[in-house]
C-alpha cells in the first residue's frame, strides 16, 4: 500500500514516465506540485521567465527528441500565458503535456483569485484535456495523458489539477503502467497495392513529404522509396530534413516561398504522393490550381486529414513508417530518365536565385556561412518571419528533427525558448536560433533562462528594426503603405543581451564578420550574434496569398 498526496503522486507518475526535465513557473495554485518536485531527485526543473517560454521549452525538448515532455503553470494568468505554446503544439502535432494548477475545487466557479476556466479555454487547442475532480483520477489521468499525447498523430494534452486535489492524500495498492503510444492499425493491403500500381505506372510522379514523415521516424523509408522509384521529392516546411534537401532528387520546400522550379514541377506532375502532409494553404497556394493534372495518393495516420482539402484517389490511413515499409517492396526500380531530365531542365532554367553573397553580415549570407561552420547534427530553430523563410529556403537540412520551427500557428517568440529546450534535450549538440528583432522581442525574457541553464545556443539575430514580412506584404500588396511595421525605436540588442549576462558578437560595422561568426559558433555556451540587415531586402520568390503557386513574384529580378 502506498500513501501520498496528489502532488507527490503526480511527480512520481511523471518520474515513472521517464520525465527528466520540466519547464515551468510556480504560483499559488501549483505550489504543492512544486513542493513535491523539490523532493524529486530524478526531475530537473527549468525555471522559465514567462509561461509561454516554459511551453516552448517543453516543445523544443519534444520536437528534438520525439518524446512527450512536460511543462508546469499556475492557474489564471499562468494558464492563459501558456496557451499560445499549447495551440502551437496542436497545429504542429507536438506531444507536450501541460499541467496547470487550479483554484481549490470548492472555489471553482466563484471568480476566485487567479481563477480562469483553463479546461474550457484549452478544449479547442489541445488533443485532449482533463480537469481532475478526484485525487484517485490521477492514477489514470497521468498515464492517459502520455498515451494520448504520443499515440497516432501526436498533440498536446492539458491536465488541470485543483490545489485541494494536490494536497489530498491517497492510498493505493499498485502503480499504474506508464502511458505509452498505442500501436497504429495496419493499412488496408488493397489500398497499398493500388497505390503501388499507380506509382509504378505514373510518368511524372512527385513525392510530397510532410512533418508526419519526421514524426513517424520514417526518413530512411522515405529515402528508400524516393531512390527506388527516382521520385522527385518536395518537402513541406515541417518536413524539411525528412530526406536531405541537397539530395539530387530533392526539390526542396514547396509553396509560398519555394524555388520556381519546385512549384513548376508540381504543376506538371501526374501523380502526387502525399506522405504525412496536410495540404496546408502556405504549401498548396490556391488549392484548385495545385497539381491540377495529378492523381493523389494520400498517406496519413489521421483519418480526418484525408479528403479534408484535396480529394485523394487513394487514401491510406496508417503510420507513415509502416506504410512505406509495406509499400516500397511493391515499387519497381525505375530510373525515370525522361521525367527526371525534365525536372533537371526546370531546375536549370528556373532556379532558386538567392542574392549572390556569402558575406556573413547579410541575411542569406549568414545562413549560408552558419551552415558551413556547423555539422549536420546541429539543431536549427527559428522564429517566424523573413528569417524563417530564408532559413527554410537555404539551410541544407540533411537529418530529421534538426529543424524546429513554428509551422502551423506561426508563432513569433517560438525560436529562443524552443532552442533552449532543444539544447536541454541534446546538451552535446550546437543549437542555432535564427531570429528577427520582432520575434526575439516577443520572448526576450528567456535570455535569462538560456544563461541560467548555460544552454549551448547561438542566437543569430537578423535585425532590420521592423516586422519584415509584414513590411514586405505592405510593400507588395498594399501600395507600399508600410504602416506599423517599422519600429520607431531603435533597440540596442547587444546591450540588452549583455544586461542578461549573455556574451555578444556584433557583426555591424567593419569587423571581420566571418571570423567573428566563427568565433561565436565555437564559443561554448549561449551567445547572441547581432547582424543588422536591410529592411528593404525581401524574401523571394513569393506567391501572393490566395494565388496559385505558379503565380510567383520575384526570384529573377531580385538577385
Amino acid at each position, binding site marked *: 500500500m502506498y500513501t501520498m498526496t496528489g502532488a507527490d503522486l503526480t511527480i512520481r507518475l511523471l518520474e515513472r514516465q521517464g520525465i527528466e526535465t520540466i519547464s515551468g513557473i510556480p504560483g499559488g495554485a501549483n505550489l504543492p506540485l512544486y513542493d513535491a518536485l523539490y523532493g524529486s531527485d530524478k526531475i530537473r526543473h527549468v525555471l522559465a521567465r514567462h509561461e509561454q517560454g516554459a511551453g516552448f521549452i517543453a516543445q523544443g525538448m519534444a520536437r528534438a527528441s520525439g518524446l512527450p515532455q512536460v511543462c508546469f503553470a499556475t492557474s489564471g494568468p499562468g494558464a492563459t500565458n501558456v496557451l499560445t505554446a499549447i495551440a502551437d503544439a496542436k497545429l504542429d502535432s507536438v506531444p507536450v503535456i501541460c499541467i496547470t494548477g487550479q483554484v481549490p475545487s470548492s472555489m471553482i466557479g466563484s471568480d476566485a483569485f487567479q481563477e480562469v476556466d483553463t*479546461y*474550457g479555454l484549452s*478544449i*479547442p487547442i489541445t*488533443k*485532449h*484535456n*482533463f*480537469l481532475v*475532480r478526484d485525487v484517485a483520477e490521477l492514477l489514470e489521468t497521468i498515464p492517459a495523458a502520455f498515451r*494520448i499525447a504520443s499515440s497516432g498523430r501526436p498533440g498536446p494534452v492539458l491536465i488541470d489539477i485543483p490545489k485541494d486535489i494536490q494536497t489530498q492524500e491517497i492510498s493505493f495498492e499498485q502503480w499504474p503502467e506508464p502511458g505509452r503510444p498505442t500501436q497504429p492499425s495496419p493499412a488496408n493491403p488493397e489500398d497499398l497495392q493500388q497505390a503501388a500500381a499507380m506509382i509504378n505506372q505514373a510518368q511524372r510522379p512527385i513525392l510530397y513529404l510532410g512533418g508526419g514523415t519526421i514524426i513517424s521516424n520514417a526518413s530512411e523509408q522515405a529515402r528508400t522509396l524516393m531512390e527506388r522509384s527516382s521520385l522527385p521529392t518536395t518537402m513541406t516546411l515541417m518536413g524539411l530534413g525528412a530526406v536531405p534537401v541537397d539530395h539530387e532528387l530533392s526539390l526542396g520546400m514547396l509553396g509560398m516561398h519555394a524555388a520556381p522550379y519546385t512549384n513548376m514541377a508540381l504543376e506538371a506532375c501526374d501523380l502526387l504522393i502525399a506522405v504525412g502532409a496536410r495540404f496546408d494553404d502556405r504549401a498548396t497556394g490556391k488549392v484548385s490550381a495545385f497539381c491540377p493534372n495529378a492523381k493523389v495518393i494520400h498517406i496519413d495516420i*489521421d*483519418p*480526418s486529414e484525408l*479528403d*479534408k482539402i484535396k480529394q485523394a484517389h487513394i487514401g491510406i490511413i496508417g503510420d507513415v513508417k509502416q506504410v512505406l515499409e509495406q509499400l516500397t517492396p511493391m515499387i519497381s526500380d525505375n530510373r525515370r530518365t525522361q521525367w527526371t531530365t525534365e525536372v533537371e531542365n526546370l531546375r536549370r532554367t528556373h532556379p532558386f536565385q538567392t542574392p549572390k553573397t556569402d558575406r556573413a553580415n547579410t541575411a542569406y549570407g549568414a545562413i549560408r556561412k552558419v551552415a558551413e561552420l556547423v555539422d549536420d547534427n546541429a539543431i536549427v530553430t527559428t522564429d517566424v518571419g523573413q528569417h524563417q523563410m530564408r532559413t527554410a529556403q537555404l539551410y541544407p537540412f540533411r537529418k530529421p528533427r534538426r529543424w524546429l520551427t513554428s509551422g502551423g500557428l506561426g508563432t513569433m517568440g517560438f525560436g529562443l525558448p524552443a532552442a533552449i529546450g532543444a539544447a536541454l534535450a541534446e546538451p552535446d549538440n550546437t543549437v542555432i536560433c535564427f531570429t528577427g528583432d520582432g520575434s526575439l522581442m516577443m520572448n526576450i525574457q528567456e535570455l535569462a533562462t538560456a544563461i541560467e541553464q548555460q544552454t549551448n545556443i547561438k542566437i543569430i539575430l537578423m535585425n532590420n528594426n521592423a516586422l519584415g514580412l509584414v513590411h514586405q506584404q505592405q510593400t507588395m500588396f498594399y501600395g507600399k503603405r508600410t504602416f506599423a511595421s517599422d519600429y520607431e525605436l531603435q533597440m540596442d540588442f547587444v546591450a540588452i543581451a549583455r544586461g542578461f549576462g549573455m556574451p555578444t558578437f556584433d557583426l555591424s560595422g567593419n569587423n571581420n564578420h566571418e571570423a567573428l561568426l566563427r568565433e561565436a559558433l565555437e564559443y561554448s555556451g549561449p551567445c547572441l550574434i547581432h547582424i543588422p540587415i536591410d529592411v528593404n531586402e525581401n524574401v523571394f520568390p513569393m506567391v501572393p496569398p490566395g494565388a496559385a503557386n505558379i503565380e510567383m513574384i520575384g526570384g529573377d529580378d531580385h538577385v
Partner: protein
Amino acid sequence: MSENSSAQTTHHEVLELTVRNHPGVMSHISSLFARRAYNVEGILCMPIGNRERSRIWLMVDEDRRLEQMIKQVEKLEDVLDVQQHDANHQVFIKLEEFFQT
C-alpha cells in the same frame, strides 16, 4: 434553434454518439461544432447503462462538410462511437410535442 425548425421540412441528419459520461464531454462536442461554424439544430443527452456512458443525439444540417465533421467527432477521446441516421429517425420527431410554440 429556430421556432419553426422541424426535422421533416429541412435537410438534416441525425447523429448518434456514444460517449464517456463526464462533465466535460458536452463542451468538447458543442465546441467542436461551434468553432467550425457548423449548425447544430437539436441536441439530446442522457446516461445509458450503468451511467458510465452517455448517448448524445445531434440533429445537424446536411452539408458537404458533414463527413469532415464526423471524422473530427470520432477523433475526440471521449467519443466511443458515431452512427449516422437520416432525418426520418424518430428520436427528434417523437419529441416535437415538447417543442411547440
